[in-house]
């Protein structure tokens, strides 16, 4: 497949644009998606191409953005609603978890809610306590919702296209730190990636690093460094927090018998907790060392640069965690 080197923001933009060209029912809505060209420029040029009917600038009304997308999806449209950042999606938590995620089940299949909530997540650029959340696991808690967390431009494109075509409500998170990072992106208009499928991004035999989104960058960097000492890490990029592809994790774990979970989010009741719990339930006989977790520290993110970085995970913390168990 022919591919082109693009930053993640451009890969997302392509995916969204192609899907809007393909399907008239798809429209985007959110704060600053139109005239401003998108807070993160993912919808740059959309207003020109698709017009006001399909590119809806909204008031600063997160509850209504969330809920209106649900209603429009029920009535047959394919909304792609953007929360400027995931921090503001907290205001729409009810629309997302009590409505989007419940309606198909609560009415026993009578209604479908085929929508995508896009939300920019994380950062670590002194955005401070309220503007630096990576709460993907909170949303992944709820059955009825899928949660997508791409780590590369190609995955971002393939996963977003799949999400838009799917019949279920999907929270699609985009790491702000990854928007400018380039990578090869397939040019095919029909390039999609299956829902809930993890990918081994590096093969190895000594320890499995299980991660998603920005954690992939730290994990791959750590794996490279550890390889110099002869420690071969296998890196599993989950890509989706729900559905959670444990088969791929188990397959790797059976080979390595050791695991480190790497995530940008907080440690309590987290992705890492879930993976560790599943491994001890299902893979106890294969386990040679306690599962390690690398997460943000259990504090609100501070402003001051030095202590902000201290609180965030990085490559070195992953290296340390691996060294504790090999």
């Amino acid at each position: 497949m022919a591919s082109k080197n693009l930053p993640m923001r451009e890969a997302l933009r392509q995916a969204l644009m192609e899907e809007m060209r393909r399907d008239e029912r798809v429209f985007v809505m959110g704060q600053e998606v139109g005239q401003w060209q998108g807070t993160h420029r993912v919808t740059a040029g959309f207003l020109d191409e698709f017009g006001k009917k399909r590119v809806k600038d909204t008031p600063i009304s997160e509850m209504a953005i969330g809920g209106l997308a649900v209603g429009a999806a029920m009535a047959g449209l394919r909304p792609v609603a953007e929360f400027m950042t995931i921090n503001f999606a907290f205001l729409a938590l009810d629309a997302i978890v009590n409505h989007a995620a419940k309606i198909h089940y609560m009415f026993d299949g009578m209604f479908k809610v085929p929508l995508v909530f896009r939300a920019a997540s994380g950062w670590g650029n002194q955005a401070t306590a309220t503007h630096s959340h990576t709460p993907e696991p909170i949303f992944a808690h709820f059955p009825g919702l899928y949660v997508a967390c791409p780590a590369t431009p190609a995955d971002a494109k393939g996963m977003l296209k799949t999400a838009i075509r799917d019949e279920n409500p999907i929270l699609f998170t985009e790491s702000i730190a990854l928007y400018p990072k380039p990578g090869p992106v397939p040019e095919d208009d029909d390039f999609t990636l299956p829902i809930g499928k993890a990918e081994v991004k590096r093969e190895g035999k000594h320890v499995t690093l299980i991660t998603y989104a920005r954690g992939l960058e730290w994990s791959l960097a750590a794996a490279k460094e550890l390889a110099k000492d002869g420690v071969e890490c296998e890196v599993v990029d989950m890509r989706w927090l729900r559905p959670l592809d444990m088969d791929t994790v188990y397959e790797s774990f059976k080979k390595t018998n050791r695991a480190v979970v790497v995530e940008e989010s907080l440690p309590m009741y987290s992705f890492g907790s879930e993976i560790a719990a599943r491994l001890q339930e299902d893979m106890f006989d294969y386990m040679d060392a306690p599962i390690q977790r690398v997460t943000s520290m259990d504090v609100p993110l501070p402003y001051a640069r030095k202590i902000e970085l201290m609180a965030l995970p990085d490559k070195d913390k992953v290296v340390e965690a691996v060294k504790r168990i090999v």
Partner: protein
Amino acid sequence: MAKKPTKEQMLEFYRQMVLIREFETVCDDLYSQKRITGVYMHLYSGHEASGVGALGAIEPSDHVMTAYRDHGIALARDIDANLLMAEMMGRVDGVGGGKGGSMHLASIDHNFWGGYAIVGGHLPLSAGIAFAQQYNETGAVTLSFIGDGATNNGYFHESLNMSAVWKLPIVWIIENNFVGMGTRIEDSSGQPELHKRAIAYGMKDGGRVDGQNVVEVYQSVKSAVDYAREGNGPVLIEVLTYRYKGHGVSDRSYDQRFADELKEYQENRDPITLARRYITENYKNVESQLDTFDEEAQKTVAEAVEFAENSPEPGYDELIRNVYVE
């Protein structure tokens, strides 16, 4: 102002109103006999003219959404009482397979998009339904019912404002029964004349309507629906009505607290009595027809109870189905 309803319409309104009253009376009995169970059941008795008059003003191709006080709206939309009663009892033949219960009645075939239990949560959903009609140029109008208490959370503000900015074809109907659970309107709203909220959004103020008078409700809603259908944007109507029963089945203080007011409404402002008087004063030889409706209502509801009680309870297969669209 829209024309008065025809004789046929008035007879149909009466038929629906007595059916609703009977359905609610029987539900109340069934609950005290523990044949309907659970903690939530909110009766529509006293409100009949509001739902019936309003739904009488729209077409089958139009759309309806409401909150948890939804039995009367569902019946006014002519949904089969058997299926509604089965849902009340949590049976597989219920409209939602027994998974929604009293607060979540719906029927996609009737464009009745459901009852919702998070106060205000369905308001942006209704706006989304209306948005889909505008997007697809269907010409359909959406009616969205709102409790007086629901006008005080953020969903109300965000949804009404957005509907005005986007000129959505929607009629917002506040059913003001003067109390939200146990809090009187004077104690919850700085502006207790709720229709005046329209001014804040630059939306058409549909005024305050006597909700015990089905003729008046019909005429006001019809005018509003015509206005919205012509593409002029949303309308807000305040229907003054009265709840005969406590907030829900767990509310035991209501009858005592408001005894005098309740007596006044039941004796002098009862919507069914008033409708009957209007019909007998305006049309000849209708008494026996009205009596027939009274008898039919009893028969319909008795049959519905029998149907529901003969319907099986859902099992494991129903428990796990329709979490996602497969």
